[in-house]
């Protein structure tokens, strides 16, 4: 049975498990209808020109995993940023794991989507924010139709979250192939601050397909830092859809570190709904083998006097494929916009491919918009310089790659996370430099 048909029939089973009379369920049924019509995107869609889902859709995914609590903290400890105090929300095969998590309702809400969707207390928030900015395309609709669990983070006005929040999604591999559809909602009130770290991790080599949707709302003067770590096993695929809506003077950044997984597609979109907004999206991609990472970004400048910064670096080895498709859209009213977009790539092997499509669509005249894209190699002179000082070729290459990615790393605001990412890069490049960069 095709995955699409399987999902459609599973929806009836899903309806037996949730409250079908709620308003949220109307949204779900609507979304399901949407998905039935559109189906999965194909390469004929301009946005999917360079990424084919065919290979990952052919698996026979189970849609509803059995409950599994067998994971001990020591087994997954290494995936936590454990050297900092943080709230943690852990899901195992899409189901909340209370013994691994540390949630809170003290001042801020860092809890579960399932309770937000069902409890009356959160009804106004859900009504106002749930499924409001995610475009109604096929993958989002599919996620919305099955939306039930995920992280719900609500930071009220004038509150600074005292600790970063970690969202971890583990898959155990108890099923031979599993499809997960977490749904996250982050609402950050006026003047509020929050830092969030998100990770998807499979614990075995069994196939996993995650189709995640995260909606982030940043009210006036709010500050949101969102970090995504993608370093999964070779059979895990991730379609990550993140949508950010910002109000005036807010500052929001999303960092994406893609080091693993079979196929990773990041759809990241920013909508600027006020003046003096700052949006940052940065990413480092280091992949090898037959891995495929696709960054698809959009910044929609709607109001005047806003800024956006995009900086994506990629290093591609073996037969890996990298895609960058960035778009800056500046509306007529959005005068005095400063939008910058940069995409730099290094191809390490002859078989690696990079497809880059940095786009500008500009309707306002008083703007400064630029984009740059480069594809190149490591500087031979720099390599020679390092080698002549006794640094072996492998380490020298790694050093230069670090330097290449450093622009993105240096803007990570959590030092422990920065260290962790440095370590991941060192592992990825298979070197030990004996010092932290």
């Amino acid at each position, binding site marked *: 049975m095709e995955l699409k048909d399987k999902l459609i029939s599973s929806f009836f089973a899903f309806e037996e498990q949730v409250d079908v009379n709620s308003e949220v369920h109307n949204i779900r049924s609507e979304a399901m209808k949407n998905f039935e019509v559109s189906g999965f995107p194909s390469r004929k869609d301009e946005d999917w020109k360079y990424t084919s889902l065919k290979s990952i859709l052919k698996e026979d995914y189970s849609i509803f995993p059995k409950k599994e609590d067998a994971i001990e903290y020591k087994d997954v400890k290494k995936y936590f940023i454990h050297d900092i105090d943080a709230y943690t929300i852990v899901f195992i095969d899409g189901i909340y794991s209370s013994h691994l998590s540390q949630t809170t309702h003290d001042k801020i809400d860092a809890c579960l989507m399932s309770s937000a969707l069902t409890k009356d207390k959160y009804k106004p928030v859900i009504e106002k924010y749930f499924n409001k900015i995610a475009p109604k395309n096929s993958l989002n609709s599919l996620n919305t139709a099955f939306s039930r669990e995920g992280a719900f983070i609500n930071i009220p006005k004038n509150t600074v979250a005292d600790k970063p929040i970690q969202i971890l999604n583990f898959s155990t591999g108890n099923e031979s192939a599993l499809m997960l559809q977490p749904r996250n909602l982050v609402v950050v009130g006026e003047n509020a601050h929050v830092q969030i770290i998100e990770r998807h991790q499979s614990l075995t080599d069994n196939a996993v397909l995650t189709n995640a949707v995260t909606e982030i709302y940043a009210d006036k003067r709010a500050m949101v830092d969102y970090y995504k770590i993608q370093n999964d096993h070779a059979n895990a695929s991730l379609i990550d859809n993140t949508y950010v809506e910002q109000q005036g003077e807010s500052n929001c950044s999303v960092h994406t570190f893609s080091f693993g997984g079979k196929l990773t597609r990041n759809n990241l979109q920013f909508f600027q709904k006020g003046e003096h907004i700052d949006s940052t999206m940065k990413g480092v991609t280091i992949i090898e083998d037959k891995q495929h990472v696709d960054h698809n970004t959009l910044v929609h400048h709607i109001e005047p006097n806003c800024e956006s910064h995009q900086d994506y670096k990629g290093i591609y080895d073996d037969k890996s494929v990298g895609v960058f498709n960035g778009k800056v859209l500046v509306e007529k009213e959005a005068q005095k916009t400063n939008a910058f977009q940069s995409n730099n790539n290094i191809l390490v092997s002859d078989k690696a491919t990079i497809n880059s499509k940095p786009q500008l669509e500009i309707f*306002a005249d008083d703007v400064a918009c630029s*984009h740059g*894209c480069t594809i*190149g190699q490591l500087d031979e002179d720099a390599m020679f310089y390092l080698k002549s000082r006794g640094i072996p070729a492998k380490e020298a290459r790694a050093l230069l790659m670090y330097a290449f990615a450093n622009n993105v790393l240096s803007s990570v605001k959590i030092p422990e996370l920065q260290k962790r990412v440095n370590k991941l890069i060192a592992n990825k490049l298979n070197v030990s430099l004996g010092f932290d960069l």
Partner: protein
Amino acid sequence: MNKFTEDDLKKELETKEYEYGFYTDIESETFPVGLNEDIVRAISKKKEEPEWMTEWRLEAFRIWSEMEEPDWANVNYPKPDFQNISYYSAPNKKPKYDSLDEVDPELLDTFKKLGISLDEQKKLAGVAVDVVMDSVSVTTTFKKTLAEKGIIFCSISEAIKEHPELVKKYLGTVVPQKDNFYAALNSAVFSDGSFCYIPKGVRCPMELSTYFRINQAGTGQFERTLVVADEDSYVSYLEGCTAPMRDENQLHAAVVELIALDDAEIKYSTVQNWFPGNKDGKGGVFNFVTKRGLCEKNAKISWTQVETGSAVTWKYPSCILKGDHSVGEFYSIAVTNNFQQADTGTKMIHLGKNTKSTIISKGISAGKSQNSYRGLVQVNGRAENARNFSQCDSLLMGNECGAHTFPYIEAKNKTAKIEHEATTSKIGEDQIFYCNQRGIDTEKAIALIVNGFSKEVLNKLPMEFAVEAQKLLEISLEGSVG
């Protein structure tokens, strides 16, 4: 002195009319509207073409019938009704001319108005001109001088009759019939165009030039240009176009094929000034053109274009860098005003080793126009040490226009070095202030800045054409260029 502001400039731009919008009353023979196999046969028969050519056209027609009109470009326009166009229109009195004196004086007047007074150019610039009016080649000058060098420069219909072996060998090799919707249409119905062959080791002593004009109402112009530069030869080719002012939209679907064999160099310059429609966006030419060049070993193809006309432009002059060490260049200025829409750019396909390409694209949008750059740089697996540099700059005048950039960059070789950069800006107040401060009034300052903005491309035009291009920029942005 009244201060000349950008608003004034905008107003001037809007009200500025198309200077080439006259219609020459020359009797012409026009085919009934519509397209079917019989029309294709009739065109072929009219041109007294050999059997293989008729078959080639019919094959293209069959392919075209099964194709759909593309709609991926960033332009909006009412789809032309292909059954409501006459596919052949020729000035009626068409004797064979040996010298300019025998040419219909009315036709000569047309050219005078166009500013390409043939005899003047003949004397002053030494340019050989092939004039294509309503898709039929009217005159070819300087034929004798060229013939001495062994250069063939004639209309394509003449070439089909007189040099069938060359046409047969090269026609459709770079742009095959099935390449795209408009190329297929052109292949089926092209009525004329220019053909040029430069023999081995010959450096063409003068610029070759074609002038296209749509004269008759309700006709489409479909011309086909084929330039073949044999080993170690050089040619510089110019192309210009105008059309009368009409309320309806006219269709222009041309195909240009360039073939540069080993060590050859072709420089192809276009000044496109089809009628852009009036200031309310009515009328104007739909310009759907397929231009492509093939470079063999050490060959070089350079495209330079100044696009100021057409209601809708859809044009991507491309280079296939097949041979090792071949070079492709693309220099473009696209100016859009009022309701014009341009979606233009280039494709650089790197196949050979050590191939190089350069793309410089300057877009200027004013009024309510939309100007898009769409380009592809592709480095294939075997193209070692390929190098590309692209730069796309856009200048916006007024807040009702738009500038868009859609670059596609695909690299499959680790030794590839590709750089792409794009900027969008308006004329800076500080720039104008700087000029004002030094006694340059605002109008001149804007002129200076626009000129400076397009300089990199204007410099690439051959001398004779640069003057005309300057003039066109003036027309399109009059009031701003001093």
